[in-house]
């Protein structure tokens, strides 16, 4: 019993992760309550932007965990992949829900055709929707039961998170008007993270890190 209790205790890193991941939502609610100008005047657009930004950042952070462990040997972050991924899904779900209401409510009635058109007729929306479907699938299967049932396939399925990352970045690139610097930063980070997952690269990085630490240890013990 005591052992189990210890296992359930959250590390500071986990607490920071949960608080940080909830911050955009709290901030949105706070700004709405405070009457921040854009949220006051065009609330749907602003809330869509903000939740979309939160979703992509959290997805990038979730994808960053494995490369961070590869490069720095910092195992603690591996446990953050799941919560960060689920928070990314949560924001994507809010983002998509706002999109549905925003596009569907025309002349005071819900127009599902308008939602269909808005989602499937424009490429930026379509790739965003595809990213959402991937995240939804992964969120549904992010439990012990699914892991046990799917066995080997679970890992294969959850590799699609990379696809979600790529789709999300394309969604962002296709969305902006002209200045694509910001989405390109996400694209560059994503590329670096994906390269670090190539088995040969990963092995080389891990070997280099281990050699370095061995050499450091040897140096400290000899002095």
């Amino acid at each position, binding site marked *: 019993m005591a052992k189990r209790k210890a296992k359930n205790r959250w590390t500071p890193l986990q607490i920071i992760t949960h608080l940080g991941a909830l911050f955009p939502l709290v901030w949105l609610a706070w700004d709405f309550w405070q009457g921040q100008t854009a949220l006051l*005047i065009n609330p749907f657009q602003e809330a869509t932007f903000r939740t979309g930004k939160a979703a992509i950042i959290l997805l990038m952070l979730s994808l960053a965990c494995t490369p961070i462990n590869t490069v720095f040997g910092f195992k603690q972050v591996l446990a953050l992949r799941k919560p960060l991924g689920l928070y990314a899904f949560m924001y994507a779900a809010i983002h998509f829900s706002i999109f549905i209401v925003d596009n569907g409510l*025309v002349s*005071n009635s819900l127009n599902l055709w308008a939602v269909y058109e808005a989602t499937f007729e424009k490429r930026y929306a379509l790739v965003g929707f595809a990213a959402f479907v991937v995240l939804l699938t992964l969120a549904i299967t992010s439990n012990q039961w699914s892991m046990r049932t799917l066995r080997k396939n679970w890992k294969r399925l959850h590799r699609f998170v990379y696809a979600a990352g790529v789709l999300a970045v394309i969604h962002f690139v296709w969305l902006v008007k002209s*200045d694509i610097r910001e989405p390109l930063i996400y694209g560059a980070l994503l590329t670096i993270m994906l390269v670090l997952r190539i088995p040969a690269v990963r092995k080389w990085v891990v070997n280099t890190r281990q050699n370095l630490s061995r050499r450091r240890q040897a140096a400290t013990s000899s002095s």
Partner: protein
Amino acid sequence: MATKINSSEITPEHIYLSRRKFMIGIGSLAASAAVLSACGNQFGSTASGSNAQAALPDDLKVSATTDELGDELTPFGAVTSYNNFYEFTTTKEGVAGLAEGFKTSPWQVEVGGLVNNPKTFDIDDLRTKFAQEERIYRLRCVEAWSMVIPWLGFSLSEILKEVEPTAQAKYVRFETLYDPDRLPGQSSRWYNWPYIEGLRLDEAMNPLATMATGLYGKHLLPQNGAPFRLVVPWKYGFKSIKSIVKIELVDKMPVSLWMAAAPNEYGFYANVNPDVPHPRWSQATERRIGEFGRRDTLPFNGYGDEVAYLYEGMNLRANF
């Protein structure tokens, strides 16, 4: 934000107060929208209308509270705090703050090119020489949101008649002030500054093509394109170029800033057209600022009777 102490010191008190009233008004509006939407209730323009009146300080003047279609005026606070003006910033709610203190006097507007009688007008001339009338027009942004704004100004054709275009003149080319020190957004190399816009001469001669010097009975504020801007109500908002320093009659179709930035997305004509989608989003509906749901977008923004003749026989899909 308007609540900052230093900004309230700079801003004349009545404007500052009107902003606060607007905030309070629309804040309760947003809150009630959230509640009403949960009940599936209608959230209409009557609520925003009463707010427009509540937010109308004594110095704002309007002769009507709706446009000719019965659509309520967009509150002054929204018109002056939610602006697309990339010369200041690409953040719509950030323009008003950055534009505060932008010097619009002295200001001169050079009108020349293919004309018999080139002239340079002082902004004071433009405000007094031409009879200023109130014109309540819908403004439809290409980003699919819209407002109803009571402009103050006169027809562009009046200036053109003064300078007498020659027979060679086919187009009118407009240019915004270029001064990166005062317009910090012009340091961005993503756009080909200065902002350029253009109209075909017959479009420019249409009485709806308006040169605005004010709105809500006051001089334009910097965020709205002070001191002198174009208003072309049947075209997407980006055609209505702000803070103009030069008007030129030319024989070739001018290339606007947006045509240069994204030729496949922004054309010369840019007439409001629900049937021709933007490559990245639909133009069939729009969000009227202050309303909860969207509404259908009207061809030529509802001004078809006045302007459709200009485009007879033209393929509006090809000439977007």
